[in-house]
Every structure is written in structure tokens, then in C-alpha cells.
């Protein structure tokens, strides 16, 4: 898929379905996506940004009966999704989200894509504007192996989730879990729930805001809302 895309697409080494095939069986969905799916109420209106080949969307449509839309940068991903009956537009989180009206979706999902956006802060603000809730996951740059890699090797860290060398990585805005939480705080985005995960998407029983999570977790998964700013409550 990434070979055909016009701009680099993050690849985090997760299990990708073969091109053109959309997996929907619960057992076959990537574990972090399954975790996201479990957070979404049946019948919800969902926008999945960076939906790839549509695995999560197809799963949600089939098993959760959601009204699902997707946005994907790579043309091959979009074509595969639409060819499988999913409502997906070719688009870019930085450029194509502004058109959506406020509160258009119950849930907006941005899985492993935030760090590849040009304006992550604006993207986050838009997510909580167009969705009542946003579910955002990203690789944690504070993970101990990454820290150790830089300390010991003196070279830009690469890991199971960060597979590109520095000169061709699409991941231009990497952050730690603490960075992320701090930014949410700064822009008045409310963190409703945080989950820390290992590289396979298996949750840790760690307090997501704590420094131990920032050291031990390989990924962060957060449920956000803009309620602190507009006064409404969704918790």
C-alpha cells in the first residue's frame, strides 16, 4: 500500500491485511484496533481518519452496526475500501477535515497517524470539534528502548513501531505520552480515558499519566473530548 501512495504513509509494523482484502473477523483485527472498536457504541456515527484498507471500519460496520466513514491518504487504500462498499474519501488529516461540521460524528478515530500530520495541534482541535469524542493512538517516543537507543547508539531511534530511518520517515511530529497529555491540557482538550499498550496493542495496567507509563508503554491510546472548552459533558 505505501509503495503506491503519493506521500509517505506511516507504517508501524502492525498486521496489515493483504491489499484488496478487508478482514472483519474479531480474531483477525489488529489488537489495538480491536481495543478501539470496543470503545465505540453500536450505531454510532464514526469517522476513521487514516483508515488504511478499512479493516477497522469494516469490522465496526459488520459487528457494531455503525454509520462509518473513512479518510485515507493512499489511493490504493481508498480504492480497496470503496470497492468493498465502505464510504471512504481520499484525503489528508491536515487539509481535508475542516469542511466537516461541528459535532458531525459521535466518534472520530485517528489511529497511529497523528505523528505524521503537519499540524498535530490543529488536527487534534479539529478532531474534538467534528466528533463528540476522539480516539487517538500514537507511538510513545518516551518508551525506554527508544531512550536507551539514543543514549547508547547515539543515532535516531528505530523500533518495531518506528521502522523508518530519519531521512525518510513520515513521522515528523513524534511525541511522548507526557508531551501528548501536556498538549491536550494546554489546548483544553479533555482526556476522558487513557490506555497504554505494548507493541502488539496489549494494554498495560499502568496509570497513563504516570512517568512509569511514559517509560514502559510503547503506544498510547486516548479518548478525548472538547468538553472543557464548550462546557458540555460526555463522561
Amino acid at each position: 500500500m505505501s509503495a503506491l501512495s503519493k506521500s509517505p504513509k506511516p507504517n508501524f509494523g502492525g498486521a496489515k491485511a493483504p491489499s484488496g482484502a478487508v478482514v472483519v473477523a474479531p480474531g483477525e483485527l489488529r489488537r489495538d484496533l480491536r481495543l478501539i472498536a470496543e470503545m465505540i457504541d453500536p450505531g454510532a456515527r464514526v469517522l476513521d481518519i487514516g483508515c488504511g484498507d478499512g479493516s477497522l471500519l469494516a469490522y465496526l460496520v459488520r459487528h457494531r452496526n455503525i454509520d462509518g466513514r473513512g479518510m485515507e491518504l493512499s489511493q490504493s487504500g481508498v480504492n480497496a475500501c470503496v470497492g468493498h462498499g465502505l464510504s471512504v474519501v481520499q484525503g489528508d488529516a491536515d487539509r481535508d477535515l475542516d469542511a466537516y461540521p461541528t459535532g458531525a460524528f459521535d466518534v472520530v478515530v485517528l489511529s497511529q497517524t497523528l505523528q505524521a500530520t503537519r499540524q498535530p495541534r490543529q488536527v487534534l482541535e479539529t478532531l474534538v470539534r467534528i466528533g463528540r469524542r476522539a480516539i487517538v493512538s500514537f507511538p510513545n517516543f518516551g518508551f525506554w528502548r527508544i531512550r536507551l537507543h539514543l543514549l547508547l547508539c547515539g543515532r535516531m531511534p528505530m523500533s518495531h513501531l518506528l521502522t523508518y530511518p530519519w531521512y525518510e520517515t513520515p513521522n515528523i511530529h513524534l511525541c511522548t505520552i507526557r508531551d501528548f497529555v501536556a498538549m491536550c491540557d494546554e489546548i483544553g482538550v479533555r482526556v476522558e480515558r487513557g490506555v497504554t499498550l505494548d507493541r502488539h496493542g496489549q494494554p498495560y495496567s499502568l496509570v497513563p499519566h504516570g512517568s512509569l507509563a511514559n517509560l514502559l508503554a510503547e503506544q498510547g491510546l486516548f479518548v478525548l473530548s472538547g468538553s472543557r472548552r464548550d462546557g458540555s459533558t460526555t463522561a
Partner: protein
Amino acid sequence: MSTVISPRFRVAPDQDWPGYRLLVREPLQLDCGIDFGPFTIAYQTYGTLNPDRSNAILVCHALTGDQYAADPHPITGKPGWWETMVGSGLVLDTDRYFVICANVLGGCMGTTGPQDINPATGEPWALSFPVITVRDMVRAQKWLLDHLGIDSLFCVTGGSMGGMQALQWAASYPECVFAAVPIAAAARHSAQNIAFHEVGRQAIMADPDWSGGRYLSLGRKPVRGLAVARMAAHITYLSEAALHRKFGRNLQDRRAVTYGFDADFQVESYLRHQGSTFVDRFDANSYLYITRAMDYFDLAAEHGGSLPSAFQGTRSRFCIISFTSDWLFPTSESRELVHALNAVAANVSFVEIETDNGHDAFLLHEPELFETLRGFLTGCAEHRGLTRSW
């Protein structure tokens, strides 16, 4: 297919050409303010309408197309313009869907147009034919669907001007459109496109045989002007890459240039052929009227300058398709449409297909176009509860 004939209509199979003709006795209120009628709609159908009349797909043709999407053209004998798309087991599967294609208002293949006789004068309408719009074309099609007893289309689709009609359908009759697939289209005709159309029209009008549009009454035909119009337009349907791939600088049946103005190059010969075969099947005044209709098309202008307003509250499912090498209706215009549909939270898919075939790609064998459309329609059929057994 069962036909419900209300007293307003008279239906008669065409004597000369395959397909049907519907005479609408009630006048059509045109955008230009004229109540026009009675008028005839020539149309063709493929497949069978199901008992609850929920499997109809309206295929809208482009500028020089006609109702013969999937059978041989009665004049040229060439295959239907979308015969790779419409048919048993094809993407617009006639075993499953009831496909309707009607010649547009102002056309020259049976639907009332400037070459028909104005009953008031006994002469061809020529330039006294009212200027029509894409919305007028769609209004006429709405009469046809009422006649066929179809309240709601499963899908309306078409490329280029056909895509404009699909958009107009979705905007004018949202409750009648379950799904809309505008291909290689835009919500308005661009300045560049209007400019190319103007070149074509001027070429026709500059032909002395055009005779102020009265050529039919005078027994003439502005074939040179119409051929030049077609040649110029045809270039815009291709891409630089496609022209280079097909012809390069290859010479036509000769080893060297002739230092004259013969068609030395293959591309010249090709264009001349395109021009000369076109005049056999198309009416010059129809060309003027239909290009004008496209020029006037601007969905946003119809809705106070706001394109999202055109689709406010729509429940239709959209699939917008563009082609990378289409410079007549570039992807940026489709993206604008997608943004407008997103702004009203419409259910929209958007696919850009990589090809060097230019604007004409919607008429050609583009596997990704077929796959996308098939998938989209299958998904829609599931939502609509369309099953194969009826």
C-alpha cells in the same frame, strides 16, 4: 417492464431506431422562463424493473453521447458508449438492475432538440429553440421516471455532463436519489471549459453553411465547422501523455513530411477522422445548445453561492470519481465537491483513479473504475435491501 400510461403521455416505440419515445404533453418549465412543450423524450432501457421498482439506475450521457449506452449506435453501427459497463454480469448488471438512459433535452437522437420541427412554424426550431440548462434536462428526465412509475432511483450516474446531471438530480430531487455517482464531473463549468466550448461554437457559426442556424431549412449542413469543433474538443478529452503514447510524432502513411498542409502526422489524421465521423451523427445546433447548458451549470450559484447548501439534508450516498490526467474536470474540482458534501455530513466516497487516458477515461476500460463502481453499488444494494431474487 410494466408501463403506466397516464393521460398526459403518449408512448410509441421508435419506428426507425431501437428504444422508446415518450411524448410529454404538459409543458416543461425551463430555467430561461419559457414553458416548453409538448416534447418528446427518446430513451432506452436494459434489464427488468423489479416489482417494488427499487432497482432503477439512470445513466446520464455526456455532451455528444446518447441513449444507446449498451447497444449499437443506429447511425454509425459502433458499439454503445458504455457497453463495457452496462450489461449482463457487468458493473451495471442488467440481470440485477433496470438501467435507463435517455437522450438529453436539446439532443439530436430523438429527444426534442433544435433540429425538430417547431409546430408553430412548421420549420425546424434552429435558434428559436429555447436555451436549456442541465437542470432542464433533469426536469425532463423526471417526467420520464414519473411515467415509468419510478419514485426513487437506486442510482444515478454518468461521466462529464452525465456527472453534472447526476449532481443535479441529487440536488433537485434528493428524495428520489438513493445513490449518485458523478464521474469526471464538477459542480460548475470552469472558465477554461467555457472557453473551449466557445471555440467550438465559433467554429460552427463561422461555417457559411451554418446560415444563422437555418441550415436544415436551406438543405445545408455546417460539416466543416462542426468537425473543427469536435477536433478541438477531442484534444481536451485526452491528455498529453495519451496523445504521445498513441501517436507521438509518427507520420501518417509516409516516410517524410511533405512540406504542405496535408495530414502528415498521425495525430492530425486521427483528429480529422474524429471530426468527419462526428458530423454524420450529430447536429450542429444541438452542439451549440448542449455546450451552452454545460457552461451555465453552477450548482452553488443555484443555492445562493453556497455549494454545501445544494446538498443540505441529503440522505443520498455519493461516490465521486475523478481521473489523475483529466485536465478538463480535474481532481481538484471533485475534491471541492467532496468538501461541500462533507460540510453537510453527507455519506460520500471519493476515489481518484490513476490513468493517462484523460477525461475520456470514463468511457474506456479502466479496471479500477469498474472495481470501485461495482463495490460501491454492491454496498449500496445491501443498504437498500436489494436482493437478486424477485
